[in-house]
């Protein structure tokens, strides 16, 4: 993990293939066919599993094969075994995953509150934007992991340290996208509000925030994904006895050479990220799907 700087260089939501984006523009019926909607993903899945078998039985040198057990062994030992001996089976994986989920969710919640508040201040007070923007850019370019020794030294309490890592990693996309949305309102719509003597607060509430919602949701989705990464990565660096996060658990499995549990834990951590992504996609659809459509050329 050394050298991972977790830079967010692009805040445009590229994380889903076009046909999976929740806020996809309605497509015509004849464009939907069995192959592209179902057969495609299934074929890719089969190819992936086939490659995995090939890798763990043929391609990897024999002395490394224990780290990448075959898919059926992972399913059998990692998912279908509930609990065996100390730390083996699905149960300890889920316990540590739940531990990380809590950290990610609390961190994301704090990020949303502080990030949105800061973006609102920046949108309504120009000096505030000028004063904070350079440092926000610096923060998002800084390798958060390089700060872990400092965080460990300055902050007491493992939970607080882990949450702080999540906030630091997830912070920028929320602020950036919210600010961009708040400042992208149509001039004539602003003038409409000026004509009728709207206060700054009314303007924010009835014009800028609703108009910014599509951007805010893009920021939310990116930050939500990053909060998962932040939680998992934070686990590697901040852990103590007792229950550990999924990141730490993965490291333990690696150390004990438990390949099946290792892979199962990685898969579950990824599913967690996927669930968060889909959840925010649905949330976005519920909140703005009625009026907002994405457009694209053909």
């Amino acid at each position: 993990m050394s050298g991972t700087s977790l830079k967010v260089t692009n805040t445009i939501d590229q994380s889903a293939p076009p046909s999976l984006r929740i806020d996809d523009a309605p497509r015509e019926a004849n464009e939907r066919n069995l192959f592209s909607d179902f057969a495609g993903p299934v074929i890719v899945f089969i190819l992936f599993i086939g490659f995995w078998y090939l890798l763990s039985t043929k391609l990897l040198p024999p002395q490394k094969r224990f780290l990448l057990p075959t898919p059926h062994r992972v399913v059998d030992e990692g998912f279908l075994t509930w609990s065996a001996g100390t730390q083996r089976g699905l149960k300890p994986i889920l316990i540590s995953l739940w531990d990380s989920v809590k950290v990610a969710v609390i961190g994301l919640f704090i990020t949303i509150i502080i990030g949105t508040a800061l973006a609102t201040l920046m949108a309504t007070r120009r000096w505030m934007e000028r004063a904070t923007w350079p440092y926000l850019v610096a923060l998002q370019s800084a390798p958060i992991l390089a700060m872990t020794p400092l965080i460990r030294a300055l902050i007491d309490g493992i939970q607080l340290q882990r949450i702080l890592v999540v906030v630091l990693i997830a912070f920028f996309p929320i602020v950036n996208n919210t600010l961009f949305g708040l400042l992208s309102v149509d001039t004539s719509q602003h003038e409409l509000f000026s004509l009728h003597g709207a206060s700054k607060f009314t303007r924010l509430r009835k014009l800028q925030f609703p108009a910014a919602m599509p951007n805010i949701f893009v920021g939310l989705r990116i930050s939500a994904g990053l909060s998962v990464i932040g939680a998992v990565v934070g686990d590697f660096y901040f852990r103590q006895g007792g229950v550990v996060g999924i990141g730490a658990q993965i490291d333990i499995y690696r150390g004990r050479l438990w390949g099946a549990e290792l892979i199962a834990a990685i898969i579950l951590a990824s599913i967690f990220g996927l669930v968060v992504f889909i959840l925010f996609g649905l949330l976005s659809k519920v909140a703005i799907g009625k009026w907002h459509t994405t457009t694209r050329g053909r």
Partner: protein
Amino acid sequence: MAAALAFNNVGMTFPDGTKALGGVSFEINPGEFVTVVGPSGCGKSTLLRIASNLETETDGKCEVDRNSIGYVFQDATLLPWRTVRKNIELIAELHGINSDDRTKLAQDAINLVGLTGFEEKYPRQLSGGMRMRASLARSLVMKPEVFLFDEPFGALDEITRERLNDELLRLFQLEGFAGLFITHSISEAVYMSTKVLVMSARPGQIVDSFDIPFEYPRAHSLRYEPKFAEICGQVSLALRGALV
């Protein structure tokens, strides 16, 4: 009778030194519909922006009750996240009208512009003409004494435009507001107005004025009468003169 809107020698010089308007004077009484035509960039829209206080004149004075202005923009400027009904309630909302009165006023305006049945649609589900009707209704809710129109039908196809011209004239007769209308179309100007003003290129000045003698209500067929064509011709000539 006091004028509803009066420009007294109004001039406008922007901070960058651009002189947009040079000494414009005219008055609009209640029940008058005045249209300004002029070359692109002559400061026609600036007139409306001054009247509505979006800009402040640098010379002269514009007198109007700013609490009773309706402003219809070039595009409908509907808020896409609000339904037609909620959009039409917006201005009443900004003026602090309570919810019950607002609903009633909005429904009246919706019926008046013929959007009944479309109240719960979102703007993206409407055609351009219907969006403009919604925009008109939104301003009508507060029953303004002065109505400012900034090329509202410029982006619409000709048939829709002519239909909306008739709709607007009907509203004008019904509500009796003072109208100030900006357009590029000479026939639209003559068809709608009690008076057509011709503006020169920048800095904009009123160089000619035509009283339009036709009685209201005006029928669509008026556009094909010789007298109508003659007046259009005169305005067109004046406009050509204003260009040089």
